[in-house]
């Protein structure tokens, strides 16, 4: 649980490869500038700043030129247009994107080529485009951490199962999948912090939906059980840690207090479950999740007071 990191930048080439299709992007000009980097995870519009003689834009943000900006530029004679564009391009901007299917003239694109600043066009409307782009960038730039564990969806609850290697996390996961839970990731869970309250877990792409079962080897859950038994990513709602049963340790007997486990400064409900022969961990986890859901509805467990009337 150590290696949290902020990814600091994203090259335009990677950005285009990853999100080009989702954002309906087409590269019009400035392919030589694909090594430029996006530093800030929010897209901006120049907007009113366009009217300044020297247009100053924050560096590192993607700039979106919508209908307003384009019709403003088009309202000037060719010579002034040139000035505006070169003033725009004097900023350190990773790339410009024309929204709503706007198509620039030849002379327009030349500057981008010369300055080696990529220019894209999207068919999406400006508002929708910026919303989707900001969501994608927020996820890409999110603080992240890699955890050794299993992430499952049990009763529509994201359950992260932790425990030492060999304790039986994967076997337990298979039991739960057979009972109708969905697998997100086994052994390696990449967790991203989205906003201030949400943790989202995914599995690394090259081992997605694979589970290792000692004695059988590596199996593919999606192929074995079908597409309804897996999920690409899922919000994490609680943490369950499997411990080797130790007679010295005192385990919770009442379940009255809720412990929490901190991941990237977010506190999640946390339960430690002791593992011992004959204890069916899948059933115990199933009950733990149901109980957690019950607690969240505000229902308290009524425990007798110990005195009889």
């Amino acid at each position, binding site marked *: 649980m*150590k*290696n949290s*990191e902020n990814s600091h930048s994203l090259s335009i080439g990677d950005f285009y490869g990853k999100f080009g299709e989702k954002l309906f992007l087409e590269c019009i000009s400035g392919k030589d500038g694909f090594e430029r980097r996006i530093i800030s995870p929010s897209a901006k519009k120049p907007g009113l700043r366009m009217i300044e003689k020297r247009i100053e834009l924050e560096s590192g943000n993607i700039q979106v030129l919508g209908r307003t900006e384009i019709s403003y530029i088009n309202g000037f004679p060719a010579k002034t247009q040139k000035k505006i564009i070169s003033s725009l391009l004097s900023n350190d901007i990773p790339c410009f994107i024309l929204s709503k299917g706007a198509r620039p003239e030849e002379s327009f694109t030349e500057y981008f080529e010369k300055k080696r600043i990529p220019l894209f066009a999207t068919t999406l409307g400006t508002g929708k485009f910026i919303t989707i782009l900001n969501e994608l960038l927020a996820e890409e730039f999110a603080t992240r951490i*890699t955890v*050794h564990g299993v992430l499952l969806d049990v009763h529509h609850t994201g359950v992260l199962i932790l425990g030492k*290697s*060999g304790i039986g996390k994967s076997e337990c996961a298979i039991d739960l999948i057979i009972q109708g839970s969905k697998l997100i990731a*086994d*052994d*390696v869970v990449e967790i991203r912090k989205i906003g201030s309250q949400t943790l989202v877990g995914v599995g*690394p792409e*090259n*081992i997605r939906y*694979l*589970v*290792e079962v000692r004695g059988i080897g*590596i199996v593919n859950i999606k192929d074995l059980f079908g597409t309804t038994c897996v999920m690409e990513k899922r919000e994490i709602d609680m943490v369950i840690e499997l411990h080797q049963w130790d007679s010295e340790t005192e385990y919770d007997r009442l379940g009255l207090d809720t412990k929490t486990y901190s991941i990237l400064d977010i506190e999640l409900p946390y339960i430690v479950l002791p593992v011992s022969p004959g204890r069916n961990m899948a059933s115990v986890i199933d009950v733990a999740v149901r109980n957690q859901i019950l607690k969240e509805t505000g229902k308290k467990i009524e425990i007798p007071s110990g005195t009889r009337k």
Partner: protein
Amino acid sequence: MSQKPLVRNFVIRNRLGLHARAAAVLVALTSRFSSSIMIRKDSFEIDGKSILGVLSLAAICGTEVAITIEGEDSELAMEEVSRLIESGFGEGIDPG
């Protein structure tokens, strides 16, 4: 767990990199020790006792990895893990 964690950097030298069989040999070795063994590539760190973890590194020939071992048998573990990686997992070392 009083000992300090040992950290060493390695370059994967066998031609096929940390492919399935090499990964299996590595985790078979690491699983013998009680110490925790973590393998890091860039900022991505995984449990060295997990075969899926090792495979998710996608370490090819020439990849640099850092191994951190912490626990009672860390010295012996580091020695044997070093020997295995440096021998190219028994597959020989790619001279190029």
